[in-house]
């Protein structure tokens, strides 16, 4: 009996280690669990940070998803713009109808699906690059963007993942030794073993205890100083390049601005009529600005910057209550924050539409 038990545990352990490494197995299980099949997974209605930190029960963070997409105010004039939007989770759900003067929309997102363009010269072709502030330095400073916003040519390798899920291994063509040593194996194992509905109660209990006793979130989530908002930990750690508080030099800003100029000129040369860059501020940058590194304003006012910027930061900052633009338990903006951004983008699109 002991022998049978031993061998069973060995086999289960090996299967788990393999599953945690395998992109395909994790993707398959995630698909099942995400749709509440098999053992289900924890899903908070109050935002991704509430979900990660299991803080569903805490009232102050309970702001529901209130996105309400309406047609743009300026509907006069032709729909003569082909909009190419390379965005992230902030903009992936924004429908084409929300943009002014737009004939067709094309959306791409890093790690999900590339933005592939085939420009119609009878239309005005506008490229809008939207990014969360935390990705400005990692995603737009090394030329990687050209792999993700590219001409309609057969790709060397694409990873098509329909929705964001747990972290997968990057498996390229062929199998390499490194594929057996997935650096994200622990996140995957944690997801496979413990992010199941049966484990929700103890996890919620622990999160509540941490909140009420120690005023702390857990894992990757940090509670704002005023106690009324959650932040992603990496956006407030001063040593993290995603952080709103990591110091940098003026030379850094100049280098980043130059890189944006190179991107701008590249896509202009490719035939785009205009290229816009829109940085959505980290919630910490506007809600808790005391030690903000001012990445966005410094970049936007950098001398010699050619890239056309959509400046949502100033509007958020100058509004009476910056908190009004973000969901309390989420990394993202709320409907108000999104509508303000849409208004600014549509102003630019109207200008483009009016051009001969």
């Amino acid at each position: 009996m002991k022998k049978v038990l031993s061998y069973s545990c060995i086999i289960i352990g090996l299967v788990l280690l393999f599953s945690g490494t395998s992109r395909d197995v994790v993707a398959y299980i995630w698909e099942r669990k995400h749709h509440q099949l098999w053992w289900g997974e924890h899903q908070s209605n109050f935002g991704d940070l509430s979900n990660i930190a299991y803080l569903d029960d805490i009232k102050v963070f309970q702001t529901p998803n209130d996105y309400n997409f309406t047609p743009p105010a300026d509907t006069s004039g032709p729909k003569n713009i082909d909009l190419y939007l390379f965005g992230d989770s902030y903009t992936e759900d924004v429908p084409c109808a929300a943009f002014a003067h737009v004939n067709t929309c094309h959306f791409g997102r890093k790690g999900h699906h590339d933005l592939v363009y085939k420009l119609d010269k009878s239309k005005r072709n506008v490229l809008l690059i939207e990014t969360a502030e935390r990705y400005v330095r990692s995603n737009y400073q090394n030329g990687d963007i050209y792999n993700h916003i590219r001409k309609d040519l057969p790709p060397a390798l694409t990873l098509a993942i329909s929705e964001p899920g747990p972290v997968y291994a990057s498996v390229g063509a062929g199998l390499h030794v490194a594929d057996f040593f997935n650096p994200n194996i622990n996140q995957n194992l944690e997801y496979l073993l413990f992010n199941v509905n049966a484990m929700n109660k103890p996890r919620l209990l622990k999160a509540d205890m941490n909140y009420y006793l120690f005023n702390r979130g857990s894992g990757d989530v940090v509670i704002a100083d005023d106690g009324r908002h959650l932040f992603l930990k990496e956006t407030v750690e001063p040593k993290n390049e995603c952080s709103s508080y990591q110091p940098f030099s003026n030379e850094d800003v100049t280098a980043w601005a130059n890189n944006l100029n190179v991107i701008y000129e590249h896509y202009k040369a490719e035939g785009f009529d205009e290229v816009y860059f829109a940085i959505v501020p980290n919630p910490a940058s506007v809600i808790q600005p005391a030690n903000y590194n001012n990445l966005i304003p410094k970049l936007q006012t950098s001398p010699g910057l050619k890239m056309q910027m959509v400046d949502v930061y100033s509007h958020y900052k100058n509004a009476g209550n910056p908190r009004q633009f973000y969901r309390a338990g989420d990394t993202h903006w709320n409907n108000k924050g999104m509508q303000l951004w849409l208004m600014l983008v549509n102003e630019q699109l109207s200008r483009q539409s009016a051009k001969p």
Partner: protein
Amino acid sequence: MLFNSLQFLIFFMVVTLAYFQLPNQRSRVWLLLVASCYFYMSFVPKYLLILGGTIVIDYFAGFLIAKSEGRPRKAWLTMSIIANVGVLVYFKYFDFLLDTVAPVIRDLFPHYDIPYLSILLPIGLSFHTFQAMSYTIEVYRGKQPPEKNFVVYALYVMFYPQLVAGPIERPQNILPQLHTYQPYNWDKVKEGLARMLWGFFKKVVIADRLAIEVTHAYNHTGLSAWSLWVSAIFYSFQIYCDFSGYSDIALGSAKVMGIDLMENFKQPYLSANITEFWTRWHVSLSSWFRDYLYIPLGGNRRGEARRRINVFITFLLSGLWHGANFTFLVWGALHGLLVTLLPGAKSSKNRVVSKVAKIVLNFLLVTICWVFFRSPDVHFAFRYIGGLFNFVSGSTTFGLNGNELLFSAGLIAFLLWREFRLKSFLIQKDESFAFYVFVMVVGCYFFGVFGENQFIYFQF
């Protein structure tokens, strides 16, 4: 693969169960070697080649040393040491050395691009290099015959519980155990598991909680002396729980398989002076330096002045062993000075001072020295230490709220009590062992601070 990870827990379960299913020692050694390779490769797979290279060199060096006499014997040892130290210097100190001479180079050749390596340090390099060196040195000294079985020798260097952060073992302790078939022993399994659980508790409940406060202090400027003292003291316990927690897991996981590793910590903060502290803190490293550096330098055989110089050199190099940064060098130098200049345990001058006062004073000295260990640079460390004695200005803020500060203080008290009065009766009976396991697992789960926090000593 971190000890405080799900991957390790599953890996440990699989390897241990498979270990006890195998019928002979030969197959067990192979299993442990393959498992250790997997364990090491989970950090950076290609670095296994470096480790493998030094293992092959030292394995053959052992034979060549044993077969030779006189100068050739010394030459083979020297070659082996150069190979080991060479790898260590290349990966760990090359950029540091370049950085040190960079100002001069830039002055002389302003347009010269300094060729920094900028590569990731192979994990645990300093540990397994020292362990490998102790083998060839012991063979040279005639205290250890060369190991004939290559797989056993490779496992001696790579045995996964102590591969990346020690204890730095000696061949006389480990090699005989790797040749001996260890029958399944429930008492040893219980003892090992209990020790592992205590190690996990120290790491995830105490060390990683204290780390929040310490990180806050080291990331903020303008803090009051009160805030800085709390964080400095917390760091003393953080690094202790972090490193000794790792050692507990290492010793425990080896014990489950019937293998005894050497003790690395003996309640070091209960030491009455710095000399005593170093007989209780990271024992495997301090004894390595004593046996292979301090004594060959002459030890105390050449007079008091020379003894002090030897002690200072040993501590200076011990500081450098920890990392390629002037902070570690200053940390080592400070300990060297304290050991050589302060009166030792046998001094009669301190009789009037009570034992408790001596322990507290010694703890505070060690705590101040740790500031160098934790600081990013020497300038920062001096500023921090200056802040410790500036009771006039600064803001008193903490990274933990009041409840958690009190809870942390309680955990430190519990730690001292638990380690000072370690009671084996907790695990003597199966019922009490089950209760202990339950309490530890629940405690780690509900009070653990999770987030894949790496062990501090992994960087060395």
